[in-house]
């Protein structure tokens, strides 16, 4: 547990000593802010729904960029050997890196709270969907982080890690949705449950249902478990 926290601290700080963190956060806020406010005053009602509906696609591209270096860089530089030979377990390393990525997502989202505060002066903001939306964003960010970390553990090339991570996140978010169209009705509800966007939209409506959370927790768990298997296989 203590090792997990130490590794988390190092990885989290490592984000902010390089300019990458600030660039990623700025781009995220710029794009999200633009799409959110460009139509906000036309819609005529006060809610953050539009903001949250952007998150699955934004996270699909941004989170793999956040996680791509976590293992690939260490494997490439060789520092992975130093890390692994210190008295830590694989699970400490994986969880430490996972928490670092998840916290980064939280830091990236934090400025959007200002949107919530500023629009609440204009009209009545329904808090249910706002709280649901942020909870959903965190669990969605967690699952995509886990997937990105899994992709990063596969290769020493950060570009490949990014593309693989993005492809998996993209499939979970969109492809499954579009495949539904071609499927017989009886399959639809089954495949719908595989879609990250479907579960995220449920939560961000403010409907807190354990099923949706179990989905994201399972995805995170499976991805981190596979990461552990990949790292074991390298030994």
């Amino acid at each position, binding site marked *: 547990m*203590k*090792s997990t926290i*130490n*590794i988390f601290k*190092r990885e989290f700080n*490592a984000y902010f*000593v*390089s300019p990458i963190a600030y660039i990623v956060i700025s781009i995220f806020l710029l794009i999200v802010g633009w799409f959110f406010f460009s139509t906000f005053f036309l819609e005529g009602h006060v809610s953050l729904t539009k903001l949250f509906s952007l998150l699955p696609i934004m996270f699909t591209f941004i989170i793999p960029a956040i996680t791509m270096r976590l293992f690939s860089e260490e494997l490439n*530089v*060789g*520092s992975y*050997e*130093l890390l*692994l*030979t*210190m*008295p*830590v*377990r694989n699970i400490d390393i994986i969880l430490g890196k996972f928490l670092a990525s998840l916290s980064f997502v939280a830091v990236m989202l934090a400025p959007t709270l200002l949107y919530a505060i500023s629009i609440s002066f204009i009209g009545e903001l329904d808090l249910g969907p706002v709280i649901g939306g942020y909870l959903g964003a965190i669990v969605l960010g967690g699952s995509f982080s886990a997937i990105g970390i899994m992709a990063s553990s596969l290769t020493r090339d950060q570009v490949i890690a990014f593309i693989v991570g993005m492809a998996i996140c993209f499939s979970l978010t969109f492809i499954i949705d579009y495949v539904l169209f071609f499927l017989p009705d009886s399959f639809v509800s089954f495949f719908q449950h595989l879609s990250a966007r479907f579960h995220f939209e449920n939560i961000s409506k403010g409907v807190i249902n354990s099923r949706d959370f179990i989905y994201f927790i399972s995805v995170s768990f499976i991805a981190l478990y596979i990461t552990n298997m990949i790292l074991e296989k390298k*030994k």
Partner: protein
Amino acid sequence: MIRVENLTKYYGDNLAVDNLSFEIKKGEILGLLGPNGAGKSTTYRILTGFLNPTSGTIKVKDLDIKEDLLEIKKMIGYLPESAPLYKSMLVFEYLNYVADLRDVPNEGKLSHIKELADLCSLNEVMHMRIDELSKGYRQRVGIAHSLMGDPEILVLDEPISGLDPNQIADTREIIKRIGKEKTIIYSTHILSEAESTCDRIIIIDKGKMVIDGTAEQIKEKTKTDTLEEAFKVLTSKRVGER
């Protein structure tokens, strides 16, 4: 102290370590020598838990790497070849991180880091980024890394490669000084260095042990005058490849 038992490691189809067995006593400085690709680094990597053996095992005291790896890792300080450190960290920041991971208690932490910085002459670079350091300094940070938390066993993979003569002399001093209380296993391609620092020498080639003994015994057995010649005879003239 350390018992390597029938250790075998395959990388895919490549045999890196072939049924290797040897023992290291407490307080001994052992030189593990051999040509490049002989299996030295692989042996170290298995001992330090970076790799799993294909078969065979290593025991440290009564602990087996297959069961008590975490406990064993606590006893071992390791310097991998060419010290692959985190480039964007400051030297102090890095040593502090290693101290935390090695469970150095908070009260003594600063003085311990200071002590290692003195020992490895790192005082003037503590505030610099690791990627700004010269090779020699980076190597010394690696040595400080391996000494962190005062481990009983030190595994040093070519600690003096790429250093200038002064730095080699300094590093030899450090090894000799800490070798008084610790068990050290290390490798080098500078054979005169091994002869002057090591209590015992093992030469391996193609994953197999070819000889085990003091420098004197090895010269006697191979009927040669210097360790270089003995090495040449034993490893089929593959010295000088590097």
